[in-house]
């Protein structure tokens, strides 16, 4: 399709239909980018799109890149905290009957570890990567609903702090990351610990949901001209499907945590079998979320792999359509599977075999993805750099995790190893193989786009081998102790069982694995300060994020690129076609049609505002207070309403509003 006829078939309605009686102010016009020379264009856009100076300015920022950077750093810090928890647990378990950590602290440690890894690290970091990359990859100037995006970060931060402060005060949840009732219910979970779990969950879900909606709308409505559905990059597809999973799965965990806090705080009986409630209801609701959650973490990782492999294989991804369809299929299937987490609860037989079958079905689209990746590599001329190494690490680890997953999907085996270290081994292979290794690949790959500098390749290789060896040394033997019968969530074990040596080995592996992250952190800091300057497109990649400078300016693209191919930068080696005609004195961005991405509207994007932060503070304070009294909701409603009105209310100049 030639870019010139992108708008030709459109029947644009007259611009201002009914201003005859002056019902809307006539549009004021301003300078446009058409025909403007590059230097003055840059000056205009830089001023219009900058984040205001000073502390208040920084706190008001609505630039998706600024917010994504904060998100990424915060999530990485939570990873380190969760990792420290893990190391502490492993030191305690490194020999029989060690007296370092008692049962009470141990319970808090594994709960905080699981909660931190799942809710404060894994989901936020994949969403944060999306917040950074999706707008750049679809060729727009900011994410949809930038203030909502800022709000979601502040909510996430306050939720994480809330959990960790409670840990410092020895008030952390101690009921496991999925906090089953009746253990977490009013009867067996006195104090405020399970309430902390419940409210923290609600916080992080609020933030994930907001990001998911913003991501969906960005992909639907803000794609560059010409980026029809078949030209959307695979990573963007992955984030789109993930966002749908968030929208349909996360409400389940919000309902679970809300029911739990109601039972605890105001005496409802939803999970109380003695008064007509049901404890298993908790598990159904929780795993209706919990299983898709695994794919919420995993699908973006496959999107990263699909973005990285073609670049290093030096050819477009094999089977683009197949990859897209697999993503969508996994998204759908992931909702049918929650019951396989509940085989040990005595469900009817037929139900169990149905869920076994569908657990195995999901292996098909996953297999298709792996086949397409291998075919891409096979047919290309792979250049092995650190990102690709981590992709190989992902293949290896994830396949092992997948195999033990198929084993667990069979009911007899599941009953045998239920709640042993076999399960701990399995899900770390899946989670770390399926998500952490791709994330590390992505970190090396996109680091130059974020900082403008390269990370050290030599340190990267060291990091990779240290991580692979440490990881497998820590987690492979867990399968074995699991089969021997070592239960999970125990703070120690007697010497007679003979589990001492292997546990020592596991712990040494865990420390090694942790150290690999210390090396990574060093490489990050070193790269950001001293790395060699990267240039716009250091890997010679083909997607739009590499069409702008590294790091990108506040406005992302001086002129909106036009897309003619899945890898526009490979297809248009000479000169990238661009669209002109947007205003440069206000934050104008292009809104396009959903399927074809035809240009449709020029719309203003939100200006910086402190209100999202204030709203998040009001929401956070309300939640915090609500673990003590239900009246908090009543008292909190007023400040929340005030901040929301402040956020919504336009500034003095109607041209300048959200």
């Amino acid at each position, binding site marked *: 399709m030639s870019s010139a006829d992108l708008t030709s078939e459109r029947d644009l309605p007259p611009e201002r239909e009914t201003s005859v009686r002056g019902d809307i102010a006539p549009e004021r016009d301003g300078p446009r980018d058409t025909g403007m020379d590059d230097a003055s264009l840059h000056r205009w856009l830089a001023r219009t799109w900058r984040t205001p100076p000073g502390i208040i300015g920084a706190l008001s920022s609505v630039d998706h890149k600024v917010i994504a950077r904060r998100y990424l750093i915060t999530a990485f810090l939570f990873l380190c905290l969760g990792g420290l928890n893990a190391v502490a647990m492993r030191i305690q378990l490194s020999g029989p009957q060690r007296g370092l950590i008692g049962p009470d602290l141990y319970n808090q440690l594994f709960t905080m570890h699981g909660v931190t890894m799942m809710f404060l690290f894994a989901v936020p970091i994949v969403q944060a990567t999306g917040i950074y990359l999706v707008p750049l990859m679809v060729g727009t100037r900011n994410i949809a609903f930038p203030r909502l995006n800022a709000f979601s970060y502040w909510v996430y931060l306050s939720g994480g702090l809330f959990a960790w402060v409670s840990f410092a005060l020895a008030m952390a949840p101690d009921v496991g990351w999925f906090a089953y009732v009746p253990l977490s219910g009013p009867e067996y979970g006195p104090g405020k610990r399970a309430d902390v779990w419940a409210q923290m969950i609600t916080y992080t879900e609020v933030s994930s949901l907001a990001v998911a909606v913003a991501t969906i709308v960005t992909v639907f409505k803000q794609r560059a001209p010409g980026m029809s559905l078949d030209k959307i990059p695979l990573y963007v597809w992955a984030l789109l499907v993930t966002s749908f999973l968030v*929208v349909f799965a996360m409400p389940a965990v919000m309902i679970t945590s809300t029911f739990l806090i109601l039972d605890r705080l105001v005496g409802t009986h939803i999970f109380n079998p003695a008064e007509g409630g049901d404890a298993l209801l908790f598990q159904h609701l929780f795993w209706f979320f919990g299983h898709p959650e695994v794919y919420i973490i995993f699908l973006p990782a496959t999107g990263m792999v699909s973005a990285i492999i073609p670049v290093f294989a030096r050819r477009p991804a094999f089977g683009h359509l197949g990859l897209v369809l697999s993503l969508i299929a996994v998204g759908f299937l992931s909702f049918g599977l929650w019951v396989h987490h509940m085989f040990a609860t005595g469900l009817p037989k037929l139900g169990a075999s149905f869920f076994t079958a569908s657990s195995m079905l999901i292996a098909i689209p996953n297999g298709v993805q792996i086949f397409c990746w291998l075919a891409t590599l096979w047919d290309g001329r792979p250049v092995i750099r650190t990102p690709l190494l981590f992709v190989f690490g992902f293949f290896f680890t994830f396949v092992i995790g997948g195999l033990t997953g198929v084993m667990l999907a069979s009911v007899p085996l599941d009953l045998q190893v239920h709640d042993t270290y076999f399960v701990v081994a399995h899900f770390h292979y899946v989670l770390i193989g399926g998500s952490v290794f791709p994330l590390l690949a992505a970190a090396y790959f996109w680091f130059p786009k974020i900082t403008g500098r390269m990370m050290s390749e030599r340190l990267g290789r060291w990091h990779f081998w240290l991580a692979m060896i440490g990881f497998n040394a820590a987690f492979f033997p867990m399968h074995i102790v699991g089969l021997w019968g070592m239960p999970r969530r125990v703070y120690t074990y007697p010497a007679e069982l003979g589990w001492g040596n292997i546990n020592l080995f596991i712990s040494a592996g865990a420390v090694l694995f942790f150290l690999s992250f210390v090396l990574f952190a060093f490489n990050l800091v070193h790269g950001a300060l001293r790395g060699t300057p990267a240039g716009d497109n250091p890997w010679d990649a083909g997607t739009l994020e590499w069409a702008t400078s590294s790091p990108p300016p506040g406005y992302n693209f001086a002129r909106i690129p036009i897309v003619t191919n899945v890898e526009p930068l490979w297809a248009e080696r000479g000169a990238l076609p661009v669209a002109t005609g947007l205003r440069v004195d206000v934050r104008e961005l292009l809104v396009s049609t959903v399927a074809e991405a035809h*240009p449709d509207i020029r719309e203003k994007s939100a200006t910086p505002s402190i209100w999202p932060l204030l709203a998040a503070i009001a929401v956070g304070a309300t939640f915090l207070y609500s673990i003590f009294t239900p009246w908090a909701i009543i008292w909190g409603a007023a400040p929340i309403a005030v901040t929301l009105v402040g956020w919504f209310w336009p500034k003095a100049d109607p041209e300048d509003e959200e």
Partner: protein
Amino acid sequence: MNQRPALDLTGLPTFGHGPRSPTWWGTLGFMALEGMGFALAAGAYLYLVTLWPNWRLSAPQPNHWPGTIVTLLLIASLVPNHILNGYAKRCAMRSVRIGMVVMSLLGLAPLVVRWFEFPALNIYWDTNAYGSMLWVLLGLHTTHLITDVGDTIVLTVLMFTHHGYSGRRFGDVGDNVFYWDFVVLTWIPIYLLIYWLPRLG
């Protein structure tokens, strides 16, 4: 990277109604996730119903009259709501202002009746799980009602200021209409679950 201008966006409008506008899609997204929450809460209720042959757990029947009045008010409000949508599409300021005032009042009215709905359930939330679920379902919907009415009132005030004279604001009115439809439609199944399901058992 070198560039070549190939497309001119100058003539595009600066706002659009309905699915043309990103805000409409955002509203739809929130309706999807809130709808999912409603569906799951209703599912949890039905799940408990199937567990207990004598659902209602020997509690008295709820009095359905306040709930029925709310239902009628909500359904009636759909008519002016859609008339308002037409005004918003045509950016007709005077009519939109009237419509917004009407819709604010029609939002407050069911809230007043809602106040009497809670005691009419004839059971407290902490009596048993049946009572808990009734209060949860009604509470969930009431929260949506309150937030949407609050939103409508703020937007009404806004439309009486000079900020109202902008295409974007008329788009906001359209989205407000859209969201109100959602609040009304989600009520119908909840109404049936709260008042008519317990009568079956």
